[in-house]
């Protein structure tokens, strides 16, 4: 079953084209990342998946159901963590989670238990009776998550859940995303922090100006921008090393020797790591340091758009 399927979706806000022919397919069990700079259209895409806003063209299916026809069923099975903290500052943490969970039909003992579990899950059990007006930013963010998970949704959507919080809360949140996924929920995770997306997502869409400009696993994405693999090898002395011999190793395209570091560029789809190492060992040259350069998503974004992800 496809959890989400967007086909050629177009969404305009007046003159602004927020989604420009967007295609997305999200499988069950994924942690799917939506990466993109401000105004890329991430929140718009999410709001459409949740049935919160209409769209101008295209088709959207969630849980194999048409969002225009089965919005109620779809909404019931989604939990959303909105980009802006969406909680009542004057209700206690417990009352907040309880109210939102009850909108999904939970009641009685089940409701009580789910609320307690959710608060426990985000580490706010001891703050259950306090009002969020007195919470720190990180605590509010955590409560924002608790409100989305009490009804145990099949799909949890998190829209930049870590904006503006301390590293400790951020790690807590990233851990809980993974845990929620292990507990059986599919996750959509948006961010413009590429480190986060790299760390937890199984698949990623990179969005810019309303378009999906690249899609795939992290490896697939990085290989899009480069078909070579670069290794830096640092040795004590370069005496006895012949450029020609290194170039003779299969797959090697270029060798560059600078001071005591050798940069070897190979074709990506040839695995020649063993051969390269073996060359140095056979010459009895000790390797001091070895670094394999993999392009990150930042490089991918830079290559595709000519801009940095964040300024």
């Amino acid at each position: 079953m496809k959890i989400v399927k967007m086909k050629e979706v177009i969404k305009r806000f007046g003159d602004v084209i927020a989604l420009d022919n967007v295609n997305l397919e999200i499988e069950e069990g994924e942690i799917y990342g939506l990466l993109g700079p401000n105004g890329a259209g991430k929140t718009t895409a999410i709001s459409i998946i949740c049935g919160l806003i209409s769209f101008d063209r295209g088709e959207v299916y969630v849980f194999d159901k048409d969002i225009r026809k089965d919005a109620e069923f779809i909404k019931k099975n989604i939990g959303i963590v909105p980009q802006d903290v969406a909680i009542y500052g004057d209700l206690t943490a417990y009352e907040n989670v309880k109210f939102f969970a009850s909108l999904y039909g939970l009641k009685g003992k089940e409701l009580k238990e789910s609320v307690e579990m959710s608060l426990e899950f985000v580490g706010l059990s001891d703050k259950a009776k306090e009002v969020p007006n007195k919470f720190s930013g990180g605590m509010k963010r955590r409560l924002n998550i608790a409100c989305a998970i009490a009804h145990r949704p099949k799909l949890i959507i998190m829209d930049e859940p870590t904006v503006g919080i301390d590293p400790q809360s951020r790690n807590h949140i990233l851990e809980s995303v993974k845990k929620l996924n292990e507990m059986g929920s599919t996750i959509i995770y948006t961010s413009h922090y590429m480190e986060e997306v790299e760390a937890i997502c199984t698949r990623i869409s990179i969005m810019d100006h309303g378009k999906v400009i690249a899609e795939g696993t992290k490896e697939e994405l990085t290989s899009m921008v480069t078909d070579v693999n670069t290794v830096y090898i640092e040795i004590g002395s370069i005496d006895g090393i012949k450029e020609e011999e290194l170039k003779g190793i299969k797959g090697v395209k270029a060798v560059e020797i600078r001071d005591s570091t050798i940069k070897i560029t190979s074709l990506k789809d040839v695995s020649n790591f063993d051969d390269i190492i073996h060359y140095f060992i056979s010459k009895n040259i000790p390797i001091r340091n070895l670094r394999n350069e993999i392009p990150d998503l930042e490089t991918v974004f830079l290559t595709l758009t000519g801009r940095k992800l964040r300024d």
Partner: protein
Amino acid sequence: MRELFLVMKNTVKLFFRRKGNIILLISGIIIPLFFLLFTYGGSGQLRIGVVNRDKSQISTDLINSLEKTDKFKVVFLKENEINDKVSKGEVDSAIVIPQRFEEEILKGNPKDVEIVSIKGEETSLFLKSYLDRKINVLYNLSKASEGNKENFYKMYDLYKNSPFSLKTYIVEDIGKMAVATTRSLGFFIMFLMFSTFNISNFILVEKRDKTFYRIFASPLKPRTYLVSNFFVNLILAVFQIALILVLVTFILNLRLTKATFDVFLILVSFGITSIGLSSMIVAFSPSTSYSNTLSTLIITPTCMLGGAFWPLYLMPEALQKLSDFIPQKWAIDAIEKIQMGGSLSDVYMNIIILLAFALTFILLGIYKIKTSGKMGDFI
């Protein structure tokens, strides 16, 4: 149904958690009551100067009946003292019973009792309504006796000793309310409007605080949410109205009568109009700052124009005509009618007009929400 109840419960909870809401609710009750106490004073006895040019049995009885109610204290005046005593405030009002008062009643064309007053229309209106009722009874007796003096006095004695007096009691109670309450209920009307707006505005507050986004991501229907806001608003309005009427009755040491209930019905109708207006303001406002400004710009001036703060007749004629388009006018007009001894049948037009205003406002609001494209505009 369950959802409706859930959201209503949550809205009530939110209402009572925010101090500002409670302050608004309480001041909406307290300030009009203070105003009432201030203008009405504690004793509540009106001093009535009396000049009796007739000196007949009927006119003496009439004066005695004034005295017998503990609402009036009768002070006999000489003809040339009237203006002096009234203007110095030694009496609140003065009445002059004309010559041949009894005679004319027997003939079937009763003469008006002249009333001199400076306390404003209301004191004299109350007195007038009291006297009108009395004289009306006499007139009816005279008509029934077909000018026969003997028959008239027979019936008159019967009337005097009958438990009919109960009816005059009601009139007195209402009249006493009329003296002081119209203005304080006028203030209450303004607070009620701010209060209903405050609750309608919860929708925009939820939008501002983003809880709106979360609510509409849930399976809850937008309609359920809007209806629940309306009901909570209505419940709190009814609560405030009932509370202020009970307190007014208590403070003025009156009994709850049918008139109190009529005023209650009028105020509730006005409450519905006010909720309709508030909902419309909210539907047309993109943000809380916008709606707050808009509501202040609408509520305060219309209360002035509608006669909530001062009697309409004090305003220029053109403005008085304009007030026909203002719901407050119809509410206050109806309250005055009831206080002058009218009944529901005298004010049903006012109530219909109020409800028509309400319907118009609500339909305009719904139209605005529908045309702005689902609730999308709201997120």
